[in-house]
């Protein structure tokens, strides 16, 4: 077999260039997809999104891979007369990037000692030439990085050792000379550092990508919703956590929705503005709380954290972060706050009860005894009866307040049939309802499990709810009292009190459970009825909820734990 010499290769014959079409042919076969313009755009994008170091690393590595493949391929394909010929052919044949005319000036190597040195001139490169035409001088850098990478890869593969090619002088014009040298990595001085750190950056980036994929694994399994948005606020990534939180699949958001699209409509503009203000400062944010609309129409309260994504130049590319659903936590906090308030009221009441009960007892006692002594038609009958009635009202007030106190917490719960307990108060309610032209509908469910409750307190709750309902229907209406097994809450029995009254405006719904909150005229309501009901149900391990539509009516639902569940919950302590 005839040995190949470098001088045998007639490159002008082997290669055909079609610069305008961006095509290169090898032995008349389209050798590769070659498009300098596309490569140029890619390089510019790399530079602007990754910064120069990472871009340089990526391009050098890219060249390196091709260089080392080419060295292997040329070694196998030709039967070179000398190693030097094989080596020198490489940088000519920059197969992907184009054609580089290299004039090696000095090639020394000794496989035994590992000594390697080569330097030469890149006379012009087809690639660089096209680039410069398209992108001007600034494109020279990225092209050179690719070529240096290519030469490094080629020489390293040839020599079996880490060699680094550096452009020692770049004129930056395709038709001028660029000087390069190839040495073992350790034989370079500080001038090699930018190349090495660029390659290192790529390695780190690769490790980052690994940890990123680890991150995605976490994102996939997290109940939080991990997201990323671009500078316009459009979602570019959403983890599956979003489905549980907002009801949408990641695909329904990514590339389609903006971060503000789910904010509660009435707060959307304000939330959007405050979020954009944070973005404009490129600031991190933590604990951004917003009310959002779930796909099913329910409001969810979300807590969002985010950090800006910036490019090397500090330009904001977007944000990424996570969202936690805190709806349940907020509800719990609110109810804790509520019960703390109530217990404060209770403690205050317990503290003054003694001081109030004594004088009140004396007033009530005298009033009642005098009322009994005088005749109906006595002029003092009315004032005295009024004193008696008002004293009884005070007495009830103090008693109600005391229910909140810790002292009364130990009132015992017993196994109770809810319907039987209701029968006891329904007659009372019926009397009130009739007097106010309200129809009472009772729907007591059958076969309900027993609840764990204090009968007197439970009756008080129903009385209060019914009382409010009747008050809310000044023109008459229907009051429904219903007991049932709730579909949604296993382990509970539910009690509903529905009216067809005035309803409660949305902004007041939060406040009606507050002690002393009342809309009734002075002297009519103490504002304690609902807070008392709340406290009692809370102590029973139950819950009280309301749904109300202005002008339509109101529905209060009380959930009570069934007997066995209650004892389990309370750890047996009553």
């Amino acid at each position: 077999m005839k040995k190949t010499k470098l001088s045998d290769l007639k490159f002008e014959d082997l290669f055909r260039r079609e610069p305008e079409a961006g095509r290169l042919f090898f032995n008349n076969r389209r050798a590769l997809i070659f498009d300098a313009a596309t490569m140029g755009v890619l390089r510019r994008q790399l530079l602007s999104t990754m910064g120069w170091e990472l871009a340089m690393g990526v391009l050098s590595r890219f060249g390196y891979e091709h260089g080392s493949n080419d060295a292997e391929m040329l070694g196998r394909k030709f039967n070179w007369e000398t190693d030097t010929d094989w080596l020198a052919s490489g940088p000519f044949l920059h197969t992907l990037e184009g054609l580089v005319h290299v004039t090696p000036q000095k090639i020394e190597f000794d496989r035994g000692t590992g000594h390697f040195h080569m330097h030469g001139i890149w006379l012009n490169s087809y690639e660089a030439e096209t680039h410069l035409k398209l992108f001007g001088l600034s494109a020279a850098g990225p092209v050179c990085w690719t070529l240096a990478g290519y030469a490094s890869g080629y020489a390293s593969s040839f020599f079996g050792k880490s060699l680094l090619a550096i452009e020692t002088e770049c004129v930056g014009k395709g038709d001028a000379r660029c000087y390069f040298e190839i040495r073992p990595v350790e034989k370079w001085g500080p001038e090699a550092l930018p190349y090495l750190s660029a390659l290192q950056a790529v390695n780190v980036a690769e490790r980052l990508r690994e940890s990123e994929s680890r991150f995605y694994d976490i994102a996939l399994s997290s109940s939080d919703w991990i997201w990323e948005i671009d500078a316009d606020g459009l979602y570019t990534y959403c983890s599956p956590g979003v489905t549980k939180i907002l009801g949408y699949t990641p695909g329904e958001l990514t590339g389609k929705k903006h971060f503000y699209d789910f904010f509660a409509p009435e707060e959307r503009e304000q939330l959007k503005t405050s979020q954009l203000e944070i973005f404009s400062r490129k600031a991190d944010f933590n604990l951004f709380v917003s009310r959002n609309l779930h796909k099913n129409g329910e409001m969810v309260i979300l807590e969002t954290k985010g950090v800006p994504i910036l490019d090397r130049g500090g330009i904001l590319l977007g944000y990424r972060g996570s969202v936690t659903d805190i709806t349940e936590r907020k509800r719990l906090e609110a109810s804790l706050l509520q019960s703390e308030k109530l217990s404060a009221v209770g403690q205050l009441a317990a503290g003054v009860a003694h001081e109030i009960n004594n004088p009140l007892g004396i007033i009530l006692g005298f009033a009642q005894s005098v009322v009994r002594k005088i005749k109906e038609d006595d002029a003092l009958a009315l004032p005295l009866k009024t004193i008696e009635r008002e004293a009884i009202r005070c007495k009830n007030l103090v008693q109600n307040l005391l229910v909140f106190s810790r002292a009364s917490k130990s009132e015992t719960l017993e196994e109770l049939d809810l319907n039987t307990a209701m029968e006891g108060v329904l007659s009372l309610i019926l009397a009130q309802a009739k007097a106010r032209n309200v129809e009472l509908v009772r729907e007591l469910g059958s076969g309900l499990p027993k609840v764990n409750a204090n009968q007197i307190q439970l009756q008080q709750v129903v009385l209060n709810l019914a009382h409010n309902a009747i008050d809310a229907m000044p023109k008459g209406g229907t009051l429904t009292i219903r007991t049932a097994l709730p579909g949604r809450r296993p382990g509970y029995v539910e009690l509903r009190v529905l009216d067809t009254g005035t309803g409660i405006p949305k902004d007041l719904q939060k406040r009606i459970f507050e002690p002393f909150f009342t809309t009734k005229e002075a002297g009519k309501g103490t504002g304690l009825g609902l807070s008392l009901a709340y406290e009692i149900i809370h102590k029973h391990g139950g819950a009280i909820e309301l749904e109300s539509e202005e002008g339509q009516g109101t529905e209060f639902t009380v959930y009570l734990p069934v007997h066995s569940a209650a004892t389990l919950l309370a750890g047996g302590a009553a």
Partner: protein
Amino acid sequence: MTGSEKHILVVDDEQGFHDLFRFVLEPLRFNVHSAYDGVEGLERFRERNYEMVFLDVHMPKMTGPELMKLLKEIKPLQLVVIMSSGSDSRQVFEKAVKEMGAVACMYKPFELDQVMKQLESIPRA
């Protein structure tokens, strides 16, 4: 009814209750005796027989239930009614004083009928 006049002892640090008991009960031929703390109550108790004793819970020197214990040691069958003005948990408190021998526990402000009901439970002499 003459000669069958009944004697009631009220131990309470509030003057108003003494006045109230007198106002209500004297016309009904009850003889109302007053003491203003536990120690004085014990002295009064030693002086004579009472058909019924009303004890306030919160008093200086001695609480009502403490005094009741002493009275019961002297006269185990003495009828005692406890009057509470506090916020003591009702069921627990009531159970405790009844176990100690009280016939009833009334909560201030109580209504007149409750007092009358207790007095009716006094056996006729």
